[in-house]
């Protein structure tokens, strides 16, 4: 239990620090901007109470917003991600078959499951984030192009990180 808490805490610090000091300065013009900090939200333990998940997502988004000068935008996107995560998990797995504190990662699940999981959640997060940032439906095709390209960038980084810490013996 305390090990899981510690691992998640370290993951949080490292991902947020990388996001605001490294990935904030990266991008392909303004079309593709990566937000790999959401990997922290993807990898929170499976059996978490819903209210706690929402609170953690909200404050994670708020902290990133503080560094981006966009109060509320990342928070709204993270809350959307949390809602979809709960729905997706209840549709795809029976919670009784898993330990409550298991992490949804490639080594615990299958690669295919994790890939679909991260695509759906990343897309919802980026869609809300970039739409709220633009705050208008004018130039909608441009916003969609930004969402798709940013998604590809983020998912590549997320897969890279999770393969980097892949443990084969866990299953």
């Amino acid at each position, binding site marked *: 239990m305390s090990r899981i808490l510690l691992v998640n805490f370290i993951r949080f610090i490292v991902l947020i620090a990388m996001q605001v000091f490294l990935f904030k300065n990266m991008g392909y013009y303004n*079309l593709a901007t990566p937000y790999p900090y959401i990997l922290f939200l993807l990898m929170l333990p499976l059996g978490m109470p819903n209210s706690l998940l929402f609170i953690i997502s909200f404050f994670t988004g708020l902290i990133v917003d503080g560094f981006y000068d966009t109060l509320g935008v990342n928070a709204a996107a993270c809350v959307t991600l949390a809602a979809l995560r709960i729905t997706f998990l209840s549709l795809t797995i029976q919670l009784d078959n898993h330990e409550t504190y298991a992490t949804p990662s490639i080594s615990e699940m299958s690669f295919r499951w994790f890939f679909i999981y991260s695509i759906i959640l990343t897309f919802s997060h980026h869609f809300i984030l970039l739409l709220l940032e633009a705050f208008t439906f004018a130039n909608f095709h441009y916003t969609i192009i930004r969402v798709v390209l940013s998604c590809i960038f983020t998912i590549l980084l997320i897969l890279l990180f999770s393969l980097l810490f892949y443990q084969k013996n866990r299953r």
Partner: protein
Amino acid sequence: MRNLWIFISKYNNFFLFILFFSISFALIVKNNRFQRASALNSSNAVIGSIYQQIDDFSQYLDLKQTNRNLAEENAYLRSQLKSSKYMRLVEQDSVLDSLGETQYTYTVARVISNSVHQKNNYLTINRGLEEGIEKGAGVISSHGIVGIVLNVSKHFATIQSLLHADTRVSASLANSNAFGSLVWGTENYDSQKVLLKDIPNHVKVKSGELVITSGYSLFPPGIIIGKVIQVTKSGDSFLNIEVKLNNDFNSLQYVYVINDKFSDEKQQLQQDTVIHE
């Protein structure tokens, strides 16, 4: 009552989502209306000091470039010295007192956080209220204009960059003196380029022509902003002019915050004029 409670706890995912999403949405709207003048931004004391710490490390990497820029500017300033100029007027009957009062004063500040990849970009500098930085002051660097001061805290200030959809700066063409406004962020997200709008069709513009500040806004007249690279005719009676910025926003190190002695007076007068109309 009990049934209602059961209903809410059964669909708690949905209700929690609505609750937190509306909190976030309220924050966004409130924040937009008050020009992001809220407590949680990068001029906040905690986040400002974290940025300061990171910058203390990273500034060593750019020392060479910074040195070269300072040397260039020193050379330029030296050429402006009285001793390096000569009098063209030989004899005059009356002696004019050439000593003028200073209208603009400058405060040097270090950029401790910067962005160019967002839709609306902001900078944070390490000077604030205690150093006399005021809200709405213009900011320039040694190579051109940077932006407008947006928020000020005790020791830090955030700047709305020129690369921001809401920033409008009055600029004029060096040869013809026709003036228009600089716009960034509509159909153009390149950090090297801005558009100069509102120049009428009949003005002859050559590519390579200098674009300078007009002196109608916060900035002193005659600061070089960039060069014209492309001129196209749009459907209405105005030209579309692409300007390559002289300033490289990717490598900003030191900026100067302008304090205009007459800015309050000018604003007051302009407001009075509008009211009387």
